[in-house]
């Protein structure tokens, strides 16, 4: 066990934890924004992320990868937009449970379609040579993507915060998430705002998928389910509706999970890495239901 606590090992665990956290953060933002506005757990978001990965494979088979990335972003954003219009918009006045069930249905559809298209074979994500360069940190060799992920996440978050705080659409988003009905009465185009949320969420999911699948290159039709659920847990953990909260939650979950996986195998506990995430969720929900940074929601009677 003494060997375990070598600096090299610790660094390698921390690095992969931080990069996993960054990737989860990019998915978690999509969850938290949608929830903030629609009060909907968008179960299909993880599958949109998986589809973005598959699109990456298929498009890059036809054109060079650097042209493929913008195409994939456009296609995935279109998919996110379409899902909102087709599956959530018709149910705007329906009970919340129906919308959530519709989300589960979309997720089911995306997974089954992916199985049909790929024929159930695991697909391998193309190598982006820039991201897979090996670098050395404190004697641990790792891919460049691991270093880039947290930096890129922070840059994107900064941009997003600017967008939300200083643009008209951002203001509209904040208004809608505060009070849906009133903002409608004030003349805000609700549907545009909601679509915009899905567009931003999907675009970030594409960036997340590029980083995630470069690190973990095999894609199966269910590859999005677990990262999706974990990202949602991260969003709840940080306080749903709060973007910095989601990011911090994602990093905490990513790091905790890799630490658990890295615990000595003699303890035989690494199987509980997913279970731990859920236990953390139940724990936080019980003791601080609004999450770390969430605002206290008041019930409307």
């Amino acid at each position, binding site marked *: 066990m003494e060997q375990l606590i070598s600096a090299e090992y610790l660094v390698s*665990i921390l690095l992969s934890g931080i990069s996993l956290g960054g990737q989860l953060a990019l998915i978690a933002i999509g969850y938290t924004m949608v929830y903030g506005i629609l009060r909907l757990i968008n179960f299909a978001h993880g599958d949109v992320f998986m589809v973005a990965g598959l699109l990456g494979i298929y498009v890059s088979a036809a054109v060079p990868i650097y042209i493929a990335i913008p195409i994939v972003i456009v296609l995935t954003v279109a998919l996110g937009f379409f899902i909102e219009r087709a599956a959530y918009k018709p149910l705007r006045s329906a009970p919340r449970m129906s919308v959530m069930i519709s989300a589960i249905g979309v997720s089911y559809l995306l997974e089954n379609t992916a199985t049909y298209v790929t024929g*159930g074979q695991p697909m391998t994500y193309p190598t982006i040579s820039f991201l897979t360069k090996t670098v050395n940190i404190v004697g641990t060799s790792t891919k460049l993507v691991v270093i880039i992920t947290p930096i890129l996440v922070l840059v994107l978050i900064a941009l997003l915060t600017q967008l939300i705080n200083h643009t008209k659409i951002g203001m509209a988003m904040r208004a809608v998430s505060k009070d849906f009905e009133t903002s409608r009465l004030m003349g805000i185009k609700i549907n545009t705002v909601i679509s915009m949320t899905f567009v931003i969420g999907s675009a970030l999911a594409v960036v997340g998928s590029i980083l995630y699948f470069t690190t973990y290159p095999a894609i199966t039709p269910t590859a999005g389910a677990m990262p999706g659920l974990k990202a949602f847990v991260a969003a709840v953990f940080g306080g749903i509706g709060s973007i910095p909260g989601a990011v911090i939650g994602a990093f905490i979950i990513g790091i905790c999970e890799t630490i658990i996986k890295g615990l000595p195998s003699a303890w035989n506990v690494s199987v509980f890495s997913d279970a731990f995430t859920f236990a953390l969720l139940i724990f936080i929900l019980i003791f601080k239901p609004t999450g770390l940074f969430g605002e206290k929601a008041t019930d409307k009677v």
Partner: protein
Amino acid sequence: MKRVISVILVLCMALSLCACASSGSSAASGEKVIKIGVFEPSSGDSASGGKKEILGMQYANSQEPEITLNGETYKIELVYGDNGSSTDKAPSAASSLVSAGVSVVLGSYGSGVSMAGGPKFEEAGIPAIGVTCTNPNVTAGNSYYFRICFLDNFQADVLANFAMSKFSAKTAYCLGESGNEYDQGLIAFFKQVFEAAGGKVITDSFPTGNSDFGSYLNKAKSEGADVIFTPVSIAYAVQIIKQAASLGIEAPFLGSDTLDDNMVLEAIAGTDLQLYVSTFYQEGGSPEFDSGIKAYINDSSEALAANGGNDTISAVTAMGYDAYFVALEAMKKAGSGDKAELMKILPSVTYTGVSGSIAFDAQGDAVRDTAYIKTADTANGTWVLETVQTGSVQAEETEPTGSAN
């Protein structure tokens, strides 16, 4: 709007039922037919392996689509039942084959679904020939289940001995999927053998759906593993290989028969990793079969897609091919395509296929004492035969005896 949709839905339903009825009747018309059930996953986690196994059966069927019994010629028809790689779908898939009136069943890839579907075949009195389901409990307690592959304990024995002799390994790190009977069974048997021979085994599991293997591989490295044993399903194997390559893992990887797959081979090509897998068949074992199936795969885009886009032959394909001919051999010997006759004759059937000679013991398991160990030639992206191992496990009583019945 609603009404239009409901009319369309009803129409679709009606059409599908018609199609259902017509597809049923088309098989009934025409010449005499013997049906062989293909109980394989073509969706779900094991779809990749299941499709390759089916490929072998389809090729065999294209080779010998007819059989002459007592002067009468029967057409042999493959009937597919997709068990979706999941135990809750397996019983209904199995009974869809029973309903279709098959005389014998081949499959499945994956032991769990075989165990879940087994009782349906037993009730209907249809013998089933397992192709690559290696868990001891598939045949134990089910007299209608046979299999032509070796068992987990034999495979683990071969690999453990190989690790000791080839690398003089002292410490083995075993990584499997939590809750998967295939992975955990092999690891448990590997541990028994390896520890009995004085080695140290570290076992570890990852949760289903996991994709981050970096932490596990780093741990293997830091805990001083001489070999890393990963008897996991194909998608995880690809993931592990890819991540190991970027981490620069030097310890050799040992894999079970699932890793003998061209997706894995593709993943390891061009890396510095070492991978050794134990398997049922080595390309070159039967040149005639090799060239035939390669032509068959390259001939159809669907077969090519099912084989993962290239024509490297997986062992499961050869096994599927052999299973088909074992069934035919039984029909010839029984002089009939009747399920009860086949069941009576199967225990005494022997057949020499491309993967070696096949005979059944009292339990219905194959009498096999040979496993091929091959290694991945990472420069050329091909498998190279490392050694042919003959196990000693046949005499040992590590496997459960069928004392329950």
